[in-house]
């Protein structure tokens, strides 16, 4: 840019970076300046040309090559498998899903089943990132336990036998929609999506051991239940843990702390808040499920 012509400010104008007054002044200058007028047309054309470029599809041969190095095979070269669970066959996809569900995350210090649980919130964040990065490669994603349009694991347990009750997560949490469900060693892992944002919900049976959670956190109430929010620099409030009806739920979201809290508030209410008749029917249903041959 020199003293006579607008230079870089022309791109500022095209990119909407100027105030209304500055943009008006620059347009007035451009009208009377042939040099700047030509330069504005030129950069506008170049900008539009680049922005009009189509997306590029990865070559098929490349996908095969990536598959070859990401399979956790006997060559020991499967270092990407957990990040990139590629869909190659049903068996491969299942193995990849198992990797996603089990390799990274250590949700709790306790064993499976009920008991005091301090969810591994750092592991939950890593699992969240690993799953989304796998999806984001576009080269394949783990097969879900449930088709995206399937009902939630809790409402039709007989149709989704891989995800046992009493897990709570519904088909949607506000504007977030259930996209994938995975089974982990200690429970289930559900992935929700809303536009470009993702929300991971981990559920495991047990009771929250709040004392075992990181120090940089704050206690709060969600739907009448005790909850905890990770306020440390790695989470900025986007990781939330709560307990409901003997299920420890850990939420990890991309959007914002407020969005994660809003999603948590959309979880089904605990049994304590249900009418006594509903609680009795639910308890009877659980008992019948446990006693039935199919259960």
């Amino acid at each position, binding site marked *: 840019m020199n003293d006579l012509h607008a230079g870089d400010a022309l791109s500022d104008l095209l990119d909407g970076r100027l105030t209304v007054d500055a943009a008006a002044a620059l347009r007035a200058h451009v009208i009377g300046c042939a040099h700047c007028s030509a330069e504005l047309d030129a950069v506008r054309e170049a900008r539009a040309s680049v922005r009009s470029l189509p997306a590029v599809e990865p070559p098929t041969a490349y996908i095969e090559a990536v598959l070859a190095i990401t399979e956790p095979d006997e060559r020991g070269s499967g270092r990407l498998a957990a990040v990139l669970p590629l869909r190659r066959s049903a068996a491969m996809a299942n193995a990849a899903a198992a990797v996603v569900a089990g390799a990274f995350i250590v949700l709790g210090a306790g064993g499976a089943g009920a008991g005091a649980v301090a969810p591994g919130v750092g592991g939950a*964040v890593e699992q969240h990132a690993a799953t989304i990065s796998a999806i984001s490669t576009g080269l394949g994603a783990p097969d879900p336990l449930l088709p995206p349009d399937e009902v939630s694991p809790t409402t039709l347990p007989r149709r989704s036998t891989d995800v046992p009750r009493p897990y709570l997560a519904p088909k949607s949490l506000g504007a977030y929609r259930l996209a994938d469900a995975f089974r982990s060693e200690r429970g289930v892992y559900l992935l929700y999506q809303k536009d470009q944002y993702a929300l991971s919900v981990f559920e495991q049976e047990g009771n929250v051991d709040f004392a075992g959670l990181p120090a940089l956190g704050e206690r709060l109430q969600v739907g009448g239940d005790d909850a905890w929010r990770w306020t440390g620099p790695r989470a900025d409030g986007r990781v939330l843990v709560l307990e409901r009806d003997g299920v420890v739920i850990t939420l990890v979201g991309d959007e914002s702390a407020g969005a994660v809290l809003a999603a948590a508030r959309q979880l089904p209410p605990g049994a304590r808040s249900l009418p006594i008749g509903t609680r009795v029917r639910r308890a009877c249903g659980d008992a019948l499920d446990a006693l039935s041959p199919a259960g």
Partner: protein
Amino acid sequence: MAREHGRFLYTVAYRLTGNDADAQDLVQEVLLRVRRGLETYRPGSLEGWLSRITTNAFLDEVRRRRRRPTVALPDDPDRVLAGGDDAEAALAATTLPDDIQDAIRALPEDFRVAVVLCDVVGLSYEEIAGHLGIPIGTVRSRIHRGRAALRGVLVP
């Protein structure tokens, strides 16, 4: 959604490198860095995180290999602004994606990165400055001069 995100990552790599082979290498490097970076990932914009890793991997590779000599842009903007209204009309009518990609590839890396991050990835000037660790004034200059140079390449 998965397919769109995949195209996003590969497209950024392709626009930065200019060819399939280098784009594939770059995506591979990005995936390795993603794996290593999981421990430092903070919930937030995934595309921003991926584009930062992609850009850094690309710049590291450029610094390491320097396979193509850098051609400095001329100081005089007139020299990269050849062509009048007629040429511009012809450009709009005849420019194909490959021509534009070739023009992007012909840019010096610094300008190419700035233009790709702005016009392909869609980052703000502030985000680009943060990605590259350079002042925002430098970002403005690189974007503008990169665009002007593109036009010069597309209309010889």
